[in-house]
C-alpha cells in the first residue's frame, strides 16, 4: 500500500505546483503532487516551452530568409510542418521527463489523478487508472492552473477554431489565419505563423495590441508587425464565426461598420479562466471570484490549511509568478524566517514574438496616473553597436524613474533578445537601486545590455551614444 499521509500535498504539477513540492521536500516535509495529465503542466507541455521551440524555428527561418543581408546564399528553402511540430513536442517531453526526475530525486510521491477536497485534511483522488485513493494532508496547496477562455460565439472547436493547444500541433500550417486577442499568447502565434508565411490578421478589442504593455511598445510592435505583412485591427469585435468545409468566415465590427473576412483557421486567445471546478471547494471557506481563488499575501484561502498559488489564484498569469508564490507559501507554512510576500511590481513579463517584448513595473501612463513626477529615458537599438552587428536595429529600451527619489518605477523593452535582458532591471528593482547605482554599473561592450545603461543615462539627459 502506497503512502497516503503527507505534510504537504500539491494539487497540480505545473510550474507553481512542482516547484512548491520541491521546496517542501527540501525543507524536510513529506510531500506529494497530484497531477491529472502531465508533470510540468500547461507551461511545460502546452505553453511557454513548446511555443518557444516553435518560435525558435520561425526565428531561424526568418534569418534564413534574410541570408543575403549576411552575405550568405541559401537556395530552395522550405520546411516540413510535421518536423517542426515534432521538435517542439520533443522539447516538451524532454522537460516533462526532467520534472518527473526531479520528483524522484526529491522523494516526492506523484499521484496521476484528479484530486478533490473532502473535509478537513482529506483529499479524494480519482486515479487515472480508475482506482480511487484517499490522501490525508497537514496542508494542501491548490495549483490547478487555468485554461483558455471561451467567448460565446467564438468557441473553439479544435478543428477550424483553435485554442493555443491545437495551434501548437497543427497537422498542416494554415495559409491564412485570424488571431482573436493580442495578448502574449495571441501575438506569439501570430508572429510564428506570419514568419512561416501565413496571411495573418490580428483582431483586438481595445485600441492597441499588447494592451498590458507601455503604449509606446504597443505602437512600435504594431508598426513592426505591419512591416512584416501582418494585418492588425484594433478596437474591433469579432462575431459570428461561420464555418465552411475548410475555412471560417468571421464578421469583424468596428465603429458600427462590419466586414467579413474568410480565413483557413482562427485562433481564439481571449484570455483564460481559472481551473476551480470539481475541487470540492463547495462548503469550504475558499472563495472564488471571477473564476479565481481568492488568497491573501501568503497564498492562504481562508479555509484552514488550504492554500492556492499560480494561475488559479489570479493574475499575473505567469509561470515565474507561480513558482515564486509556491516557494513563499511553502516557506511560510514551514515557518522559515524572513519570508516576504511577493511584490507584484517586481514581476517581469515577456512576450516572445519577433521583435521580442519585455517589461517590468509601471508603464509611463500608470506612473502618471499615480500622480508621480517621473523621468523617462529611451534608447533605440539603432544606437547600439551589437544590435547593428546582429542585424537587429529595430527596437528600444525605455526606463521610468521617480524624479524625486530615483526609484526605477518601470522598464519597457522591444527588440531582439530583450526577454533575456529584463532580469537586469528585475534585480535592480528588487534591490531598490536608484539611477545612481545603475549609472555606476559597468555593462560589457559590445552587448545589447549597454542599451539598459544608456536608457538610464537618457532619463537624466546623459546618454552617450545618441
Amino acid at each position, binding site marked *: 500500500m502506497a503512502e497516503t499521509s503527507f505534510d504537504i500535498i500539491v494539487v497540480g504539477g505545473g510550474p507553481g505546483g512542482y516547484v512548491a513540492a520541491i521546496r517542501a521536500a527540501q525543507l524536510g516535509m513529506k510531500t506529494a503532487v497530484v497531477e491529472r495529465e502531465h508533470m510540468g503542466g500547461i507551461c511545460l507541455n502546452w505553453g511557454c516551452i513548446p511555443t518557444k521551440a516553435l518560435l525558435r524555428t520561425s526565428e531561424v527561418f526568418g534569418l534564413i530568409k534574410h541570408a543575403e543581408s549576411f552575405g550568405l546564399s541559401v537556395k530552395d528553402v522550405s520546411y516540413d510542418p510535421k518536423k517542426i511540430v515534432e521538435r517542439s513536442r520533443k522539447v516538451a517531453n524532454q522537460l516533462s521527463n526532467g520534472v518527473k526526475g526531479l520528483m524522484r530525486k526529491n522523494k516526492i510521491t506523484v499521484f496521476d489523478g484528479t484530486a478533490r477536497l473532502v473535509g478537513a485534511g482529506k483529499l479524494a483522488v480519482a486515479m487515472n487508472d480508475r482506482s480511487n485513493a484517499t490522501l490525508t494532508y497537514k496542508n494542501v496547496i491548490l495549483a490547478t492552473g487555468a485554461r483558455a477562455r471561451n467567448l460565446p460565439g467564438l468557441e473553439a472547436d479544435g478543428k477550424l477554431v483553435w485554442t493555443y493547444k491545437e495551434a501548437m500541433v497543427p497537422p498542416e500550417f494554415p495559409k491564412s489565419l485570424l488571431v482573436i486577442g493580442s495578448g502574449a499568447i495571441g501575438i506569439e502565434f501570430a508572429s510564428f505563423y506570419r514568419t512561416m508565411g501565413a496571411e495573418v490578421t490580428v483582431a483586438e478589442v481595445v485600441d492597441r495590441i499588447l494592451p498590458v504593455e507601455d503604449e509606446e511598445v504597443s505602437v512600435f510592435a504594431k508598426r513592426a508587425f505591419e512591416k512584416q505583412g501582418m494585418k492588425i485591427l484594433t478596437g474591433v469585435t469579432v462575431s459570428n464565426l461561420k464555418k465552411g468545409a475548410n475555412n471560417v468566415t468571421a464578421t469583424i465590427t468596428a465603429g458600427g461598420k462590419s466586414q467579413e473576412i474568410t480565413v483557413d483557421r482562427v485562433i481564439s486567445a481571449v484570455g483564460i479562466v481559472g481551473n476551480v471546478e470539481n475541487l470540492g471547494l463547495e462548503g469550504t471557506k475558499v472563495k472564488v471570484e471571477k473564476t479565481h481563488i481568492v488568497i491573501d499575501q501568503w497564498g492562504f484561502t481562508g479555509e484552514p490549511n488550504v492554500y492556492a498559488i499560480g494561475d488559479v489564484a489570479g493574475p499575473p498569469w505567469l509561470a515565474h509568478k507561480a513558482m515564486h508564490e509556491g516557494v513563499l507559501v511553502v516557506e511560510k507554512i514551514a515557518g522559515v524566517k*524572513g519570508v*516576504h510576500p511577493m511584490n507584484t511590481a517586481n514581476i517581469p513579463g515577456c512576450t516572445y514574438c519577433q521583435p521580442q517584448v519585455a517589461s517590468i513595473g509601471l508603464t509611463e501612463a500608470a506612473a502618471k496616473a499615480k500622480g508621480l513626477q517621473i523621468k523617462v529615458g529611451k534608447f533605440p537599438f539603432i544606437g547600439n553597436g551589437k544590435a547593428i552587428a546582429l542585424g537587429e536595429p529595430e527596437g528600444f529600451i525605455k526606463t521610468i524613474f521617480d524624479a*524625486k*527619489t*530615483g*526609484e526605477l518605477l518601470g522598464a519597457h523593452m522591444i527588440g531582439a533578445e530583450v526577454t533575456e535582458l529584463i532580469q537586469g532591471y528585475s534585480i535592480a528593482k528588487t*534591490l*531598490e*537601486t*536608484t539611477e*545612481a*547605482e545603475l*549609472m*555606476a554599473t559597468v555593462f560589457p561592450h559590445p552587448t545589447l545590455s549597454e542599451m539598459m545603461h544608456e536608457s538610464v543615462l537618457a532619463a537624466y539627459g546623459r546618454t552617450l551614444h545618441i
Partner: protein
Amino acid sequence: MSINILMPALSPTMTEGKLAKWHVKVGDAVKSGQVICEIETDKATMEVEAVDEGKVGQIVVPEGAEGVKVNAVIAILLEEGETEVKAPAPGQAAAAPTPAPKPAPAPMPAAGPTPVARSTDRPATSGGQRIFVSPLAKRIAAEKGVDLSAIKGSGPNGRIVKADVEGAKPGAAPAPAAAPKATPRPSAPAQPIFTAPGDKRIPHTAVRKVIARRMLESKQTVPHFYLTVELEIEALLAARQAINDMARKMGAKVSVNDMVIKACAKALRDHPECNASWAEDEMIQYGAVDISVAVATDRGLITPIVRNADMKGVAQISIEMKDLASRAKEGKLKLEEFQGGGFTISNLGMFGVKEFAAIINPPQAMILAVGAGEQRPVVRNGQMVVRNMMNVTLAVDHRVVDGAMGAQFLQTLKAYIEQPAAMLV
C-alpha cells in the same frame, strides 16, 4: 600580524550578546564574507561574516558564552605565513566596561552616485556599525531627514527598504542617549533559585529584557527622590463633565488621565528646567513637551508618546491616547511613537492604588505616579467635608532637578488640576 575578530554590534542599542554558535574551528581557513559564527541578542540571532582572510588561530570566546561585550575579542585570525598566535589575546575580561556604541550616522550623499563599497573597505568595527539599507531607502531617508540608525529593517536579513523609511517621521531618532554609564550587568541572583517539579521556566521575551535592563539601570544609576501631593479634583471632574458634553461630537471621551497629561504638559512648559535630561557634559533641555504615558500590555510595559501635549486640546489628547494605547496593545506602535519623550505619567488609580513611587524612565528626569481618585474627608475652613481627592507622587532625578524645583513644578501642576480653567489662560 594576527587579526583580532571583535564582537560586533548588530544594532544601535546592543551592548552585549550571546555567542550562539561557531561555524569555524581552530585551523580552518576563512575567506572574507564567510559566516564564522552566530550571535544572539535580545532581538535576533544573526550570522557574523569574516571581514578578513586567514586561518583561525584561536577561539577566545567559546560557543554558548553569554553576555559577551561588544568589541571584545572573540577569535584571532592568522594571516598568511603565520603559524601561531603571537600576542596573547586580550581575554574577554579585558574588554573592560566598553562605552555604549553610538549609532553610526549612515553616510547620506545628498545627490549623485553613491560610492560603491570596495571589498577592501572594512566595515567599522569599533564605534559604529554598518547599516544595511537599500540605495532607494537611503535616499528617501536623506530627503526626509530620517535617521536610519533608528529604523528596523523589514527586508532580507533586516535590510532597511523603501517601505521602512516611507512611514518614518523626520528626526525619528532615539532620545539623546543618557551619559554612557558603566552599566553593571544584571547579574545572576546571589542566591541560587531552587526549582521544584511544577515550577515553570519561562524564557525572557525581548521586551521583558529591555524592561529589566532599563529599570535596573535607572534604579542603580539615577538618584531618585520622591514628592507626594494630594490634589482636590472636584473642579477637574466638573470640567471633564462639561468638556465631554461637547467633545462627544468629536467622538472623544476625555478621561481624568487625559486631563492629567494636559496639566503636566502645561506645568512642564512653565518649568522648562524640568523637561530635561542629564548627559555627561551638559544638560539637555527639550524644546517640545512630549509626554510618555505608561501602557500595560500582554507583552509588558510600553510608553507611547503624546507629542506637543502642551499645545493640544484635551479632546485631541484623548483621541491620540486611545489610538496609541490600542495599537500598543496590538504591538503595532512605530519606533518613533514610543522612543523619546521628556516626561512620563504612570497611572495605577484604576486598580485602587492610593499612591506609589514609580521608577524614572531614563533619560527622562521625572515620572509622575498617579493614584486613585476617591472621596475623602478633608478640612475646609475649619469644617470636615467630603471631597474627591487624588494623590500623585513625582519621582525626580536629582542630578537634573533639585528638591525645591521639583516641589515648584508640583505646585504648578496642583494649580492646573485644582483650577482646570487655568489651563486655558
